[in-house]
């Protein structure tokens, strides 16, 4: 019996609180409906719907739907969202009622006078969530004028960037593969363009960005460290409109409007860089027309949104984006009767394809459902094709060859989510999901055709199919006025080969309001992840491989506990939050010492042999965030103090070591200011402790018998005893300055700290046809030479005095971006 209570204590607690939280009151009715933007019909998510008399309230869900069950009485409903004029609706609630509300967007100067009851962090049960309005993201200074969602998130506490310019997210000690990045609810596997300097998200196509760092609601799962939930715009139901911009490296345009007014709308958004337009003619000129090299990336987002009835809506959204690098080379020569022609073409393409179909259905004014079918695919493809024609005396001999390589991950998924509002105190979400993953780590093909040979071969690495299926349940409920909780659980069945396992994950978050302006929060979440990323490169190359959890390389799991305080200051002008967290991760993998798929890999062999498994991670720290969300000047100050460790039995002698991006201090200060309708300013300053890297502090020479130099001169006949010993001790002749000593262990050395100031100014003018904005920016305003990487440079000199060669080593650093100005022209109509 004791065991029973111990085993099911979490469930019993859940049920107890669930029961307690149902008020024992009389007759009630439900008011429900959708909140939309009056100007374009876009749904407004996470808006507050609040009855000021009973002080009961609810948030709109991802699709703008709300439901509130209240006692029969006069009701005064207040609808609020930041950036919109508050609407108040008073009526007698004596039956179930549907009220669809359109909110008007506020001009920026009006924002200051928003009335009471704006959604406040203090009131939310959820903690460890970052939400940055897309409009604010678009006003932040950006590298080369290219606005980037991920870069904006990196300015928040608890979220760290990797290297300079990287679009990787390192959330509370996690690695980039541990982030569930959702675009309209569909996972994206690789979110970087151009070696990681830009992300795939075109801000013009987005409506909302939310990042969960901890306290994960049960509806999210399958990643350890964060959930980034990005929603695309739905399309304007009222009128046609467009916007776009031209910056130093790219141009983009979006167009949206009604296909049938108030019934069906679309949006389409495209972006393309034009680095190739410059690089191709330059490379041709440099090679006398023989070679041409080009690179570009593009993104295309689209969505159609159709209202079937008051109860049914359909959405179809897609994204496709690619990075394309290609090079060609032509060479010809004629000598006497013989003409030689050679053509060579190479390419490296990578990109995502994503599609989602969703059906919203309102079963009753308390039960909302969303059915989603998803497809996502990330593919890396590279090829090399060549041909040689030799013509002699009118006879041509032709040889062709081709190589191609492909790595791919593809998901097909289906989800059914329900939102159920049984009472004002409860907001219940539950659902089921199933995803089929197809992993194809590498496929290699080759074609060779000569006069006497014809080969057409392809080698496919083992293709793995895995299934993740499960259910979740969560209840966001209130007990009394000051206490609220979100309790949930998620069960996932994972299948790979013959292995079938079920993983249970508990989630809990709680908020206790001490006063109207101060609340304490806490959360606990368990997460399990069934994919691993074999990260090959250090600079965001697209050659990392996604692989599944297998019998030999188990799933990753983690648990995280967090606690904090939220305070609203100066009549909600400022919000302050302070959070502490502790996270443990298990089942991590890393490449074995000296291993790398590109260097010593074998695409047809198992990647499982090249990794260390069973790694542990430990991350803990404290995050401080002070925000000013309203007024002409908005800003935030973030500070993170953190520790981040890794431990593998066969790495660093089994001792724990700092993760590469263990960053003790991380500070960001962001300010945006609207001077007037025409001019706005923005600035950001960041500081971060230097990355942890492994540096040899000493070394010794591989001197055994002095044979090495002689062997290099003459080659060796190995059938002697001493030479064999020497050969082994000197590493089969790889004599390069001896053996390095890493006395401080893995990642025992710190790079210089990183800091940078970015500034931008925008000039906006209304024109007859719409609105234009000139945006000027400067990245790294005081040109701090931040370290991107360190490397050793060796110099061997001959010392005449001692008649000996001397080796001198220097440690050098590379800085990527000194001060970089940018300009962009934006338009809107």
């Amino acid at each position, binding site marked *: 019996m004791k065991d029973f209570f111990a085993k099911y204590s979490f469930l019993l607690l859940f049920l107890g609180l669930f029961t307690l939280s149902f008020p024992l009151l009389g007759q009630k009715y439900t008011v429900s409906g959708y909140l939309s933007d009056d100007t374009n019909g876009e749904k407004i998510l996470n808006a507050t719907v609040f009855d000021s008399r009973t002080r009961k309230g609810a948030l709109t869900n991802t699709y703008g739907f709300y439901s509130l069950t209240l006692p029969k009485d006069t009701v005064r409903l207040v609808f609020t969202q930041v950036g919109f004029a508050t609407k108040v609706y008073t009526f007698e609630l004596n039956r179930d009622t549907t009220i669809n509300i359109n909110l008007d967007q506020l001009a920026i100067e009006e924002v200051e006078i928003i009335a009471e009851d704006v959604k406040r962090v203090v009131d939310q049960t959820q903690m460890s969530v970052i939400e940055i309005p897309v409009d604010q993201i678009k006003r932040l200074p950006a590298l080369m004028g290219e606005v980037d969602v991920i870069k904006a998130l990196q300015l928040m506490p608890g979220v760290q960037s990797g290297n300079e310019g990287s679009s990787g997210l390192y959330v509370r000690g996690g690695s980039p593969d541990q982030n569930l990045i959702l675009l309209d609810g569909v996972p994206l596997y690789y979110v970087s363009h151009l070696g990681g300097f830009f992300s795939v998200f075109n801000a013009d196509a987005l409506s909302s960005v939310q990042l969960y760092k901890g306290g994960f609601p049960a509806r999210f799962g399958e990643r350890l460290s964060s959930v980034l939930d990005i929603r695309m715009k739905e399309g304007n139901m009222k009128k046609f409109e467009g916007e776009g911009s031209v910056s130093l490296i790219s141009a983009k345009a979006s167009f949206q409007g009604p296909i049938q007014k108030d019934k069906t709308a679309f949006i389409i958004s495209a972006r393309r860089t034009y680095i190739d337009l410059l690089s191709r003619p330059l490379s041709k000129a440099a090679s006398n027309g023989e070679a041409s090299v080009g*690179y570009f990336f593009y993104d295309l987002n689209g969505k159609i949104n159709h209202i079937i009835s008051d109860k049914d809506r359909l959405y179809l959204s897609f994204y496709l984006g690619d990075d394309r690098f290609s*090079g060609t080379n032509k060479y010809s020569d004629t000598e006497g009767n013989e003409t030689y022609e050679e053509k060579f073409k*190479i*390419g*490296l393409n990578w990109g995502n394809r994503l599609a989602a179909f969703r059906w919203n259905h309102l079963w009753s004014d308390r039960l909302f459902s969303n059915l989603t079918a998803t497809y996502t695919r990330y593919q890396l493809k590279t090829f*090399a094709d060549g041909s040689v024609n030799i013509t002699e005396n009118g006879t041509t001999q032709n040889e062709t060859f081709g*190589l191609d*390589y492909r790595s791919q991950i593809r998901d097909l998924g289906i989800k059914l989510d329900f939102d159920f509002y049984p009472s004002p105190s409860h907001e219940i979400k539950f659902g089921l999901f199933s995803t089929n993953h197809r992993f194809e780590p590498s496929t*290699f093909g080759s074609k060779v055709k000569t006069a006497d040979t014809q*080969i057409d*071969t392809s080698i496919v690495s083992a293709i793995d199919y895995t299934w993740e299926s499960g259910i979740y349940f969560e209840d966001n409920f209130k007990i009394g006025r000051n206490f609220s909780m979100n309790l949930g659980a998620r069960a996932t069945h994972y299948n790979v080969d013959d292995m079938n396992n079920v993983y249970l994950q508990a989630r809990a978050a709680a908020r206790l309001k001490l006063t109207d302006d101060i609340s304490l929060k806490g959360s606990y979440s368990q997460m399990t992840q069934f994919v691993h990323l074999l990260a090959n*490169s250090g600079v965001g*190359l697209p050659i990392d491989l996604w692989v599944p959890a297998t019998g030999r390389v188990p799933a990753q799991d983690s648990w995280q506990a967090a606690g904090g305080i939220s305070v609203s200051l100066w009549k909600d002008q400022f919000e302050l939050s302070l959070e502490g967290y502790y996270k443990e991760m298990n089942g991590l993998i890393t490449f074995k*010492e*000296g*291993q*790398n798929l590109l*260097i*010593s890999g*074998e695409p*047809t062999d198992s990647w499982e042999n090249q990794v260390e498994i069973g790694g542990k991670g430990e991350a803990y720290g404290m995050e401080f965030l002070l925000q000013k969300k309203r007024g002409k000047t908005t800003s935030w100050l973030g500070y993170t103090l953190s520790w981040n460790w890794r431990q593998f039995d066969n790495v660093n*002698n089994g001792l724990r070591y700092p993760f590469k991006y263990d960053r003790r201090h991380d500070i960001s200060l962001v300010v945006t200011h609207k001077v007037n309708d025409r001019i706005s300013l923005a600035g950001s300053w960041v500081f971060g402790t230097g990355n942890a890297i492994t540096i*040899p*502090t000493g*070394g*010794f020479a591989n001197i*055994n*018998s*002095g044979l090495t130099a002689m062997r290099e001169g*003459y080659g*060796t*006949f*190995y059938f*002697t005893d001493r*030479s064999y*010993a020497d050969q*082994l*001790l000197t*590493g*089969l002749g790889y004599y*390069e*300055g001896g053996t*390095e*000593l890493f*006395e401080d262990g*893995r990642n025992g050395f710190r790079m*210089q700290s990183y800091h940078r100031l970015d500034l931008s100014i925008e000039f906006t003018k209304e024109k007859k046809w719409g609105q234009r904005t000139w945006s000027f920016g400067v990245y790294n305003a005081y040109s701090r030479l931040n370290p*991107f*990487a360190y*490397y*050793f440079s*060796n110099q061997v000199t001959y010392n005449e005095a*001692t008649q000996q060669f*001397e*080796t001198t*080593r*220097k440690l*050098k650093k*590379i*800085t990527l971006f000194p001060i970089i100005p940018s300009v962009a022209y934006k338009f809107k109509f």
Partner: protein
Amino acid sequence: MKTSINIYLALILAVLSLSCERNLEIPLPEHQSRLVLNSILLEGKTPILNITRSFGTLETVSDSALFIPDATVELWSGGIKLTELSFSDTTIIDTVFFEGSSSRDFREEEIRVRAYFPPSSFSNLTPNQEYEFRAIHPTYGSATAKATLMPKPEILDISIVKDSVVRRDLDDGYLNKWTAFKIRVQDPAPFLNAYDLQALIRYTFKDNPQDTGYATTIAYTDFTQSIDGIFYGEQEMIKDDDFNGNVHTLIFYVTLPFCCGYSEFGDTDDSNIEFIHADLKLFMAESKFANYWKKQVLQSENRSDGIEGILIQVESVQVQGNVDGGYGLVSSYNYVKTQVDFP
């Protein structure tokens, strides 16, 4: 694939090259130099010990600055001091055949090293016996290391399987053929040891039987296919972790006819070559010897020097020796020679 990636890497390298580079005056943690002992004990050979010192990463070093000629060195076994060793850079330790100007021309070289030697009266070492070097230096402290002189490996029988493994490269369709040498051994129980094979392949030509030749190779133990589709042999010693003390068949591979890179026979046609026999030398070394060697190779292949290391980051390799109070490796191996005719 490799070509494309290389070009892509070159593009990024170009970006990096265009970016600002600075010499970084940075105080790396101070390195405390210690003694580095290196020795391989061989049956029937004089035990010699190389002593150098370790150095700081940014220190300018030369050979003479590293060799330590003034240490006090002793050889111990079973708690008894056997002898003292003294420094010499004139003693001839071996005679080695080197290739001359052509592949048919070999000549002999005398090998001298800067090392510590026992007195000429010192008798040879005994297999299965553990020996310990103890070195003391006034500046660099003391260091000790032990090794057990390995016995000869015990071969039970040998067979040759021609073209045992056949793989086709994807880049040009070349057909790799590896001939297997299957050597059944009785593994000695007390040691964790590892095996390696050197082969000298003798051959003749069918159309000219008077002309013979030979080529040598260290045999492969595994194969990998690189990402550009080419197969490579892997030279790793075979460790006895799974068969310690038992009878086991070791399988080594030799590429025929391209043992040792001889390509005079043409690319794929070996029909004119008749392989006669192989002179084999089966080595048995301590496991720590194999581990040390493997880690050293890995480290030198993945050296952090140069700008290229930034693009493809490989986890750094730590080489673990067996010297207490210092660095390096003192170990041992032994071998047997045998000959086997081609079927």
